[in-house]
């Protein structure tokens, strides 16, 4: 990448796509109506779906350490700003073409021993949901936390 575009070097775009095949075409649930005592059967059809999505990420640590020291203080010098776009489209069994998905802007912070992530989950349509949600994750680097046990080879 040329020097004039150096601030684009920390930018990354990732993508994923894959089909989801259910192990059964339908799920049957049986229950007893508490009022009438009758047995009720509910049938839910499990459709084949296509899951796909992409993310746009900007790594502030890469910017600071590899491109240009812009003087970012702690904790911003260890952050990745990202937006994820996960989608799923139903392919058969009565829901052909129905798509659900979200726009998830968020932040990841990473240190030497732990990584924290948080995203806001915004549904793209009524079918995806009515409310905004939150995703969080904590990732421990086990081999660095316990270098003398998990961080060593089992066999030498």
């Amino acid at each position, binding site marked *: 990448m040329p020097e004039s575009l150096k601030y684009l070097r920390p930018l990354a775009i990732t993508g994923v796509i894959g089909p989801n095949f259910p192990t059964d075409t339908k799920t049957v649930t049986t229950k007893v109506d508490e009022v009438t005592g009758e047995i009720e059967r509910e049938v839910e059809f499990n459709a084949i779906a296509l899951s796909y999505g992409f993310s746009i990420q900007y790594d502030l640590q890469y910017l600071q350490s590899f491109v240009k020291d812009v003087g970012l203080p702690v904790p911003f010098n260890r952050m990745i700003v990202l937006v994820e776009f996960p989608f799923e489209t139903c392919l058969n069994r009565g829901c052909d073409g129905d798509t659900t998905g979200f726009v998830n802007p968020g932040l990841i912070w990473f240190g030497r021993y732990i990584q924290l992530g948080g995203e806001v989950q915004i549904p793209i349509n009524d079918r995806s949901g009515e409310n905004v949600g939150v995703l969080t994750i904590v990732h421990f*680097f086990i081999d660095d936390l316990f270098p003398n046990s998990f961080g060593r080879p089992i066999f030498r």
Partner: protein
Amino acid sequence: MLLCILTEVVWGHVFPEHAEPEVGATVTVAPTRVRIWFNGALEPAFSTLHVQNSSGEQVDRGDGHGDPSDPTLLEVSLPPLPPGIYRVIWSAVARDGHRTEGDYTFTIK
């Protein structure tokens, strides 16, 4: 999907905290050495630091080394350098054995 991204990133290694000259800096006085401070202790015997000119020729004095008084520091000395763009290439091995590599440029005007 977030989980997939997070599990792909492996950040248990050491990374530069700051450097002299700074990453991407333009300086008017040629530096006599390049120093990089990392966010963890290094294994100096396995860590290297070199400086190349814009033609890819090594221009440092070849004495890249760690600092016994500061295990996070890696440095190499430089001869008097003419104006130009220089690339600092580093390879750092942390005490836990993880290796990270990287490079950056600075400019002498």
